[in-house]
């Protein structure tokens, strides 16, 4: 375990929080406009990277 693992855990939660806000801003339909869609893609890519880094840290 490392500080990096802790940081990645928080980063991933924060990215999920940003996704949560996106869901709030688009409730109830959750239909994204072009900007929100781009934001969602970026957040999900970040989340995948963060989870991947977390896997490397925790399972090494």
């Amino acid at each position, binding site marked *: 375990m490392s500080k990096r693992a802790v940081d990645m855990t*928080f980063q991933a*939660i*924060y990215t999920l*929080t*940003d996704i*949560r*806000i996106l*869901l*709030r*801003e*688009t*409730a*109830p*339909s959750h239909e994204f406009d072009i900007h929100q869609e781009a934001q969602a893609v970026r957040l999900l890519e970040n989340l995948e990277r963060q989870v991947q880094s977390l896997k490397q840290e925790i399972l090494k």
Partner: protein
Amino acid sequence: MKCASGIEARQVDELFINIDPIQAGGRLTAEAMKAVIAYGDGYSVCDNCRKPNRLDYIAKPPIAEFHKDVAKWLNMDAVRTVPGARRGFQAVAQTYVKKGDPVLVTSLSHYTEFLAIEEAGGIAREIPANDQKLITPDAAAAKIEAVKRELGKAPVLAFIDHVDYQYGNLHDFAAIAKVAHQYDIPVVYNGAYTVGILPVDGKALGADFVVGSGHKSMAAPAPSGILAVTAEREKEVFRTTAIVGDVTNRKFGIKEPEMMGCTLMGVTLVGMMASFPHVRQRTKHFDRELANHAVVMDALLSIEGTKCLSEFPRKHTMTRVDTIASFDRIAESHKKRGYFLQSALEERGVTGVIPGATKVWKFNTYGTTHKQALHLAKAFVEIARENGLAVKG
């Protein structure tokens, strides 16, 4: 989905447009949600508490700086955080009101102002609202004179809500404070529905004290709020302790009795701090909020029989409407009775109207996007049409 044993994960604002009148301004920002995750533990802000061991002196996280920033933002001289606006009222009442003292409130005042007066032993006297449900400076002057005649002395304090919780009406606080000051009555500005929602300049308004609610209007967790004071009042309300233990001879440094020492020691304070940059900015764009509110009001008022009980045009996003001659007519014969409106709204992804309410009810559109405001407007009109009510336009 549960977040703990027996506790449902609350997903109201993710699944619905929430127009609950008291919840709109307290929804957390992303920053506050993140801070809440990091600072959820009990005394989490106390890691770096150093002498003189008081909350508003802590530099990391930047609590001391936050206090200064909030004072500057409100154009007041000193600020403390409090567990809700009511604790701000309480601190001021405990300082200035003695047994039998008259205190001014209004006929639209929040109950916690009454309780603060009661606890201090004071006598509440209400300035009546006029037919438009507005508190006027003339009515304030008349009430002060009436109190003098009745009790032989002028009120020692006045609590005036800039925007009241019943109608969401904007009252002429500055003019009322000017009248009160002519009788040397210090005035509490109740900003539960304004601080964090629209621009507030305490000194320009003539406030001796500004009280704000974190969970109602500053995108912060409950219970949180602020009490801001002028330099003249700082040493009175925020006086420091003088008590000494007779056995131990202990003293308690610069702790403040009205604050009961430290106030918000964790997630409430950090949540309010984290939202503050966003909150400060959003108050500059209240016109956008009013524009979104107008979209919804136009739709509601296009429904035959619907009336706005609040002042109109609207100056705030919380509004009281009368639908006795519209939605309540449907409720009389609908199989769901009074619950049909809530049910029909929830089918359309809208929540926050009191279940069963079809006569007189309040809603608040603060924080909705324009697209969500259009959705709300459409939802009300659709429900009206589907149930045979006439809609103009």
